[in-house]
């Protein structure tokens, strides 16, 4: 990337990434553009709450370990380790933004 094989002209995150601080965000040209993908863990409905709580708590601990942060960062990924409530909110926000984008793009639903 840094060898000139690829020219990065913008990131889709709301703010510049620590990994590529010199690459502007698309939001700097188009305010409000924030579409960085999030990745999370979900369980099937009916899963014991104690199991979900344990996994959530351990994910939060792992997300704060320096080597986790480093290895994810090397891959351009930010460790978060947010709670179930954080994730529910993030999914709702993302659904709203992407639903609007799909509508605005005039993409029709398929069967």
């Amino acid at each position, binding site marked *: 990337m840094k060898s000139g094989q690829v020219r990065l002209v913008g990131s889709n995150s709301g703010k510049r990434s620590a990994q590529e601080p010199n690459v502007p965000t698309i939001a700097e040209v188009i305010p409000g553009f924030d579409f960085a993908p999030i990745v999370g863990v979900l369980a099937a409905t009916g899963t014991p709450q104690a199991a979900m709580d344990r996994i959530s708590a351990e994910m939060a601990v792992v997300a704060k370990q320096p080597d986790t942060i480093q290895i994810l960062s090397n891959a351009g990924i930010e460790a978060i380790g947010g709670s179930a409530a954080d994730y529910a909110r993030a999914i709702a926000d993302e659904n709203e933004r992407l639903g609007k984008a799909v509508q605005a*793009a005039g993409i029709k639903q398929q069967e």
Partner: protein
Amino acid sequence: MNSNNIFRRRVWQAAALAVAAASIGSAAFAQTYPNRAIRFIVPYSAGGLPDTVARIYAQRLGDRLGQPVVVDNKPGANGVVAAQAMAASPKDGYTFLVTDGSMFSINPSLYKTISYDYKRDFVPVSLAARAPLYLAVHPKTPANNLRELIALAKAKPGTLTYGSSGIGHAPSEHGSDESGFVVGHHAHSIQRHWPIRTCVDWWSSRHVVFCLAIPVWLCEVGSGALGRQ
């Protein structure tokens, strides 16, 4: 004390016992959980963003839990295969889904009928990570920044092409949102399975614009898959 009161008291006692039994059951579960391997189902093939995140967390999570956490890739049909695997697994706390938002946010907007329902079938557990994607152009493309790229796309509608990882690939689709980000709107999409095809096609100049997560770039550029020009 009349019989009605006795009946009520017995009902309350029974209810209290049931609650106590449930909490003892829950406590016992928590004490022994997990006592075998946990599975992380990923609705994509190995190497993409959710898979990378799942593997990095799985290893460290396994160390903390004292049980292996195994990543199980179930790609196909925009998440339907993974959703079916989730539905077919016992709801016992040993199977989880690790995914990005496509299954929940994009696919319901694209398809009238889809066999899974986020709110009905899944419960959020943990927000693991966030990864910005980068809009990239081939070095030969005469656009040094986003404004120039937009100007180029507007000046020559339909001539810029971009690769995407498949139907519903988020960064490609929302290239045409209402904010006036017109590159996607004026560009021609060629669907390819990523990562190899997209990268190689792009590199041979058939694609001049595309979005891709950084992890894949490091893998492809670093491995020399893009070495021919």
